């Protein structure tokens, strides 16, 4: 089925984009985690998504649900910190929602199951200074944008990324109530949460890949914080006609780096 092949290709492309982004942000994530955690989040996520790419390369399948499940299983086995069961367990469970293919409806179901599983496993509430603070507004915004505002999945995802970014910023002034940071009490205030940060990076890469795969972005404002993975920029630079795109993307990345630092 051609449609399924395209969806499978998009899943594989997204996994590589996320792996490249997390490799590039490894030190930044570790810096954030060394301030309030155990300084392993960058290395753990990088190791996890490297394993994801290896396992996807070994898997001959065009079933998007099976591919996404493989992403979750790889993260569960390879990450080693709390992010393994949180990211991996939630992705593995939510992958069941994609068994009928990737549509607006199944991606909303995926997002909702991801959030439910994350909260059940981590037992964190909104405002505890965890990845839940980025995931919750993103999932709620995506669901509302698709179901109530009847936006396209691409427009809805762009809004969800904005929502995750606002949720991430909201973690900085909070006192941590869950995870290793909670042992620091008031000293955790003033630091951005690493798990919420990696959540935003992953969503940004999903958006960038969705934009490339789904095409036609004329009617959507590009989010200033959303960027594209470096390998994608190189691919674009090889094309004369898309050279301007690459410059725009690089400029966006520079701005992003300044904001993040």
């Amino acid at each position, binding site marked *: 089925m051609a449609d399924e092949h395209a969806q499978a290709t998009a899943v594989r492309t997204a996994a590589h984009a996320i792996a490249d982004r997390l490799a590039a942000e490894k030190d930044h994530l570790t810096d954030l985690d060394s301030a309030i955690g155990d300084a392993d989040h960058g290395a753990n996520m990088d190791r996890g998504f490297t394993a994801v790419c290896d396992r996807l390369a070994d898997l001959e399948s065009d079933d998007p649900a099976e591919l996404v499940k493989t992403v979750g299983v790889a993260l569960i*086995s*390879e990450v*080693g910190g*709390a992010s393994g069961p949180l990211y991996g*367990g939630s992705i593995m469970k939510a992958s069941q929602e994609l068994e009928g293919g990737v549509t607006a409806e199944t991606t909303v179901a995926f997002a909702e199951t991801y959030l439910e599983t994350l909260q059940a496993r981590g037992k964190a509430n909104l405002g505890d200074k965890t990845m839940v603070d980025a995931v919750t507004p993103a999932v709620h915004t995506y669901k509302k944008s698709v179901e109530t505002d009847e936006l396209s999945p691409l427009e809805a995802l762009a809004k969800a990324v904005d929502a995750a970014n606002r949720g991430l910023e909201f973690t900085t002034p909070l006192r941590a109530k869950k995870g*290793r940071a909670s042992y620091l009490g008031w000293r955790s205030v003033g630091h951005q949460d690493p798990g919420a940060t990696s959540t935003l990076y992953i969503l940004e890469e999903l958006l960038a890949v969705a934009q490339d795969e789904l095409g036609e972005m004329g009617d959507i404002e590009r989010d200033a914080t959303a960027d594209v993975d470096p390998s994608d920029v190189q691919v674009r630079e090889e094309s004369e006609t898309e050279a301007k795109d690459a410059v725009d993307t690089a400029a966006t990345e520079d701005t992003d780096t300044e904001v993040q630092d």
Partner: protein
Amino acid sequence: MVGIVVVSHSEEVARGIKVIAEEMSGADTVHAVGGTADGRIGTTPDTIVDALEAALSDNDAVVVTVDLGSAVMNAELAIEMAGVESAAVIADAPVLEGTVNAAVTATAPDATQESVLAAATDARDLSKL
């Protein structure tokens, strides 16, 4: 018979707890698991699944004791992955004292999963001074 699985971020800590608990109980009932597959500090569900299966090969039920954050989550996930939700239970207890209490109680002839779990949980109230 009730088995015990102790899960720590460090394999050495898990093994050390097993040694202390078995010295107190005089019985070989504790399965120790810790660290990541490549020997780093952390936990991974895969090795916990192996320990659960080993413990359940000679016991009807298992009580799992855990140290910090991800050990709890990975133990929960491992129980689901192994499909042993009805046979394994996690104790909300300090990992060393809970494991010692559980190991001692598990040697009683009438020990049940409930009695071993209760003994582990009682370790929360142990006063040291």
